[in-house]
């Protein structure tokens, strides 16, 4: 115990005698640790954000898109829009598939909205009365439309928060009439704000109308873009998908000549998987940055320690001749490089915390620091000190005392 204390005291003293050298080595390590801390904090923040978003949406949804869905610039987008998906398909899924809670057909398109001289382009979303539950999108003000209103193709609209803000500002929108592509609609409710989705779309910039109204009076079509299917339990997800696929293939007569699906099934488990994969990629990036920056920091430690051994050759010779064992010398220099690593790590963690905090409050990126990331940083910095200190320490311990004593 006494020895360890003596070693640490001795190392501090030696490091203190070469202040600038020591400071450079510490900064070298701390930059690496800071970089890692900040990146991990951003990664963690993104991961939490995604988890939150999916928790908000519910992860028991299967989404059927008409046609094919491809990734365009990383975002899932419909390509080859087809007109084969119908309201009757939604009905059939509801009746024929097991383990299904709710089915919501939908059609959407971006149209011009007008109110009191203000106009705006907005996503118009035709759905059924189950929308607030299926998309986990509660009403903030007024009410949602009913099944009857849908069946009667009533011209009623529920506004997204962003649209309400744009058109009505502080006024009460309920009961007002807005025009969607020149067709008048009565505002009956406003949705709760949800912000931005994990893939960057603004979830509040849309208006919701009954699907029948949408088909007949707005888009003037008889097909759907999507069907949302809420499965009663996550574990039935893949079974339900298979059943939906067979029902739709049957109804669309795709089995006759073994045609390809004219629809695409997507479930949110897959979506989450995709998001997690991109986080995984980010994690590899972090590991890369960590590796490189700690290598740089480690080389700093190596340089400082080699200089330290060179400067103190005479001292090492003396110590060996008055009874220091090789391992005493090794420990003396290792504790020096460990102190460098530990100090660099501590400084890096403090800087990392500060920078992550600043990023968190000044940018739209969320940052989140876990105890584990602090712990990993400490372990990383100490092991950098250790790994890059071993070679100089061994070199010191293996000096021939006779030769070492002749150096001054």
């Amino acid at each position, binding site marked *: 115990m006494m020895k360890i204390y003596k070693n640490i005291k001795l190392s501090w*003293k030696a490091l203190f005698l070469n202040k600038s050298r020591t400071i450079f080595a510490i900064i070298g390590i701390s930059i690496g640790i800071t970089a890692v801390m900040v990146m991990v904090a951003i990664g963690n923040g993104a991961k939490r954000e995604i988890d939150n978003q999916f928790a908000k949406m519910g992860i028991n949804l299967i989404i059927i898109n008409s046609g094919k869905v491809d990734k365009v610039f990383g975002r899932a987008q419909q390509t080859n829009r087809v007109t084969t998906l119908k309201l009757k398909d939604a009905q059939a899924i509801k009746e024929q598939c097991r383990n299904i809670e709710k089915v919501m057909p939908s059609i959407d398109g971006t149209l011009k909205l007008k109110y009191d001289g203000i106009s705006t382009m907005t996503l118009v979303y035709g759905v059924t009365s189950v929308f607030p539950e299926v998309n986990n999108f509660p009403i903030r003000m007024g009410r949602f439309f009913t099944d009857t209103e849908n069946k009667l193709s009533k011209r009623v609209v529920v506004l997204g928060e962003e649209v309400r803000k744009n058109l009505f500002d502080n006024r009460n929108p309920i009961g007002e009439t807005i025009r969607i592509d020149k067709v008048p609609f009565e505002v009956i409710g406003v949705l709760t704000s949800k912000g931005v989705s994990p893939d960057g779309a603004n979830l509040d910039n849309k208006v919701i109308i009954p699907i029948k109204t949408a088909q007949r009076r707005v888009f003037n079509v008889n097909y759907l873009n999507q069907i949302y299917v809420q499965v009663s339990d996550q574990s039935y997800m893949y079974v339900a998908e298979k059943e939906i696929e067979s029902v739709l293939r049957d109804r669309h007569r795709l089995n006759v000549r073994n045609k390809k699906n004219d629809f695409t099934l997507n479930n949110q488990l897959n979506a989450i998987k995709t998001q997690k994969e991109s986080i995984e990629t980010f994690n590899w990036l972090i590991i890369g940055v960590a590796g490189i920056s700690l290598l740089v920091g480690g080389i700093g430690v190596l340089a400082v320690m080699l200089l330290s051994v060179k400067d103190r050759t005479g001292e090492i*010779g003396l110590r060996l*001749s*008055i*009874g*220091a*064992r090789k391992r005493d010398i090794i420990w003396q220099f290792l504790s020096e490089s460990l102190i460098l690593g530990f100090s660099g790590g501590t400084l890096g963690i403090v800087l990392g915390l500060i920078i992550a905090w600043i990023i968190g409050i000044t940018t739209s990126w969320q940052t989140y620091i876990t105890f584990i990331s602090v712990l990993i940083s400490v372990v990383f910095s100490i092991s950098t000190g250790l790994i890059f200190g071993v070679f100089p320490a061994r070199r010191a311990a293996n000096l021939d005392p*006779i030769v070492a*004593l002749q150096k001054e």
Partner: protein
Amino acid sequence: MIQLKNITKVYGKDSGQEVTALKDVDLIIEKGDFVAIVGASGSGKSTMMNILGMLDRPTKGEYYLENREVNSYKDDELAKVRNKTIGFVFQKFHLLPKTSAMENVELPLIYSDRKNIKGLALEALKKVKLEDRASHTPNELSGGQQQRVAIARALVNEPEIILADEPTGNLDSKSTLEVMSIFQELNKSGKTIILITHEQDIAEQAGRVIKIQDGKIAEDYRNENPRSASEELKLVDVNE
């Protein structure tokens, strides 16, 4: 106490340019001896010192320290002997810079399991009459004082043998007498002292003189009446 049998040391065996520093040296040093090993540079006296201090191993021959053959010691055991049995004093003092006299004296104790490190270090400083300089760093001390700190460091673990390599080589005549009088006193109190020097003057103050020439012992005699350094020091003080 110390017995050398047929000690031979050859350097440069690998390079092919062999230099024989010591040739078949036989020597016995008794406990309580004050031996001056004298020789010109290149005579082999430094090699002798390194072998006696176990910093180097002989090419051939046997070295018995207190009846144990030194070649049988492992590295860690050698370190222990250097720590406990032998106290080293060097020509260039080899004090740690920017480190107080006290801490310099404590150094050997760090590598032993002794308790009361401060007390022992202070006691050793008292023996060289430097207890009032305990907190001074080497650059605040004169050459003579620095060497006395180094002697205190050699004494602190109470070794049987003091091995001094040209301890007065860097000192003026007064400091030389001071250091020599400390060695004589230590010898009187029972310590075995082995002193390497090239100055005949210094050798006259030792009880036994061994002259080395071309790697061999050329002369080995006892001084019946060695010069007393403390007496001469008084004369110097009076003259001043």
